[in-house]
């Protein structure tokens, strides 16, 4: 059963589909350019030893985002 949450809430190994990228102008644009767009599959890999930023796998490569940015991305598990 599909569940809605934000990207920063995923646990290591969990996969989700991007539903909506929030945030404003430059940051959102940047995140989208990197391939985090509506409908993209994304997987949480791990968080940094100190907790932040978080590493994800998307469109075949590894991307690191801060919790702040990740919390603005809605996903569906």
């Amino acid at each position, binding site marked *: 059963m599909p569940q809605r949450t934000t990207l920063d809430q995923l646990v290591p190994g969990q996969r989700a589909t991007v539903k909506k990228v929030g945030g404003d102008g430059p940051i959102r644009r940047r995140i989208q350019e*990197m*391939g985090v767009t509506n409908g993209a599959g994304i997987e949480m890999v791990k968080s*940094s030893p100190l907790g932040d*930023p978080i590493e994800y*796998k998307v469109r075949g490569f*590894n991307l690191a985002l801060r919790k702040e940015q990740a919390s603005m991305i809605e996903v569906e598990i």
Partner: protein
Amino acid sequence: MSFTVALAGNPNVGKSTIFNALTGSQQHVGNWPGKTVEKKEGRLRFGTEDIFVIDLPGTYSLTAYSIEEIITRDYIVHEHPSAVVVVVDASNLERNLYLVAQIIELRIPVIIALNMADLATSRGMRIDVDELSSRLGGIPIVITIGNRRRGIDELKEAITQVAANPRDAELRVDYRGVVRDEILIIEELIARDEPLAKAYDPHWLAVKLLEADPGIDRALMGSGMGDLVTAADEARTRIEEKTGEEADTIIADQRYTFVNSVIDSVVVRPREMVFTGSDRIDRIVTHKIWGLPIFLLTMWIVFQFTANVSAPYLDWIDVFFNEVVYGWAQGLMVFLGLGGTWFASLVTDGIIAGLGGVLVFIPVLLFLYLALAVLEDSGYMSRAAFVMDRVMRWMGLHGKSFLPMIVGFGCTVPAVYATRTLENEKDRKLTGFLATFMSCGARLPVYVVFGAAFFGSTSGNLIFAMYLLGIAVALVIGLTLKHTVYKGKPPAPFVMELPPYRLPRGGDVWRHMWKRTKGFVIKAGTVILFTSIVLWFLMAIPAGSAKGTFNNVPAEDSVFGALSGVAAPLLAPAGFGTWEASGSLITGFVAKEVIVSTMNQIYVQEARDPEPVGEDDAVDPTTFGEDLVVSVIGFGEAAILTVQEVINIVPRTINIIPGIHIGEIAFFSETGDVEENSSSLQTALVASFSASAGSVEAGMVAAVAFTVFVLLYVPCMAAVSAMRQEFGSRWMWTQIAFTLALAWVAAVLVFQIGKLLTQ
């Protein structure tokens, strides 16, 4: 006919490697005018063709939110290269094709270099290159493996062909629905303005307007076409009303949809997201527990490189220049009949010494740039930023700021250049500013001398305290700025790719090292050389009458002495208000290493011997040939010692663990190194400082105050000129003023409080 071809692509796709392969040694590195982004140009020879190649900065997209994107886009749009070669990472096709799509939208001939084909294959991907080419409008695609130099000739051939017979890309990303309608409306408005439609492709311009591209908006409003921008705004509102999404989101979406449809028909991929070799390495490198220790270990090794591994060559150059070449120059002067004249002294003490002061930087920089290049090219850099980001943010910086800070412990100059990896201007400036408080290697000799003179066996504590103080000051300043000047300004986002690990290619790393070092030597070299000569004159000109003749005057009575004397009283509250102290500090502005040698000259009163060099004067005459042989042997010894130092990193690291002690290796037995009048300098220092401070105990406090001053005050000329280059003159002056003031306040505080405490 000569053509120009531009190289574009995502970061980390091996674009530089391809550039190097295409241009070989025929390349020139500089800066984009007015910007701090590296600009690489070169020439490519194929058959009878002579083609200019320009390496555009790596970008993920062609919006206008970063300098790299602006440079890339402006170049393609305004300079009209004959073709653009987009270097694409075959194992990362989706994101790379996103950029390709945007470049194709610019209607310029495109060639794709499908790089890292081996990586893709090892991940189980198979790409139908012909189908891909046709899906993208028939653009030529060449398969390359850059770091093995495969496919380069084919690429050169493709470039020459396209340059000679350019064919505009025929492909358009097919936007759909509401967005498509609005694009058409705006295209029509554009087409009504002929010159505009000629300058930019109307379709591309329409898309950019709908994306509210700041660069385009600004350009159009600036040339009086604000109504277009307004029309675009209205279109964006309509789109949002009808779809519930913003225009740029839909456009990015649709581009990726287009890219995906291309890929689906072209790439065969294993179902599961592959667990790659890099992921395996990252299991440990960014591990919850091991991540930090590994990072610290890596930084320790970088530090060892800069501090110890560069030392043998540094010593060799020091000796070679200040003794061997110095001797040759003297000999030459005698030969020319100029022995003993002021001109001879200018050449030897001014110019040669000055040159030596510059060249002595070379080993340090080479090793630093080597470490930097290996870290960057291997892909570790981004992992380190990933691990350190939280700590850096606490200080008001960015994860990527850590490296310039670490490098700053070796030398401030490469630390300033290392700030280029930061995307945000404010982060760059702040990091460069704080990096100067990471006590650089050249300040160390001062701590050592003072530590030995005043504290004997406990000198280690003084040295350690200085390093800690530097770090503490940087922390406090960073925190203060974060909560005052920068308060409320949102931190720059952290959106960073963790590229696959790669083995850096030796040739590329080497070229990188040399080019950067050479750049520094030429730029800063002229400044330092000039200043050395000026200093020589200041020391040679007698101040006031009847005190001596040109170049035959004790330092105290020269113009230099007079000027230092003016500054001296300012230092009295810090306990060292003597012309000798202020004079030494002034020369430290040229290069920090110079402080100790100046102190030798000034305090010990020996070296400034203006007697003419006659043939009967030479203590130990050597022939040119003998000198040469000794120098070459010395160079060889330095090479061996360098290897020794690299190996010794291991025992040194292990010895950090308390209780364990492994001996370090030494290829040559300790040849009682030149003591260099150190004890006479030390005695002189103790005497002078005790006198200026009022008592022996106060003298010790004053000595600490002096080292604090040296830690905090203005960085050397080379670093300052690097700052001017990267951050602009105004920032440079701010830094100079601030560090001077901070150093003075700190030294005075230390002395006054210390004096109270020891009474």
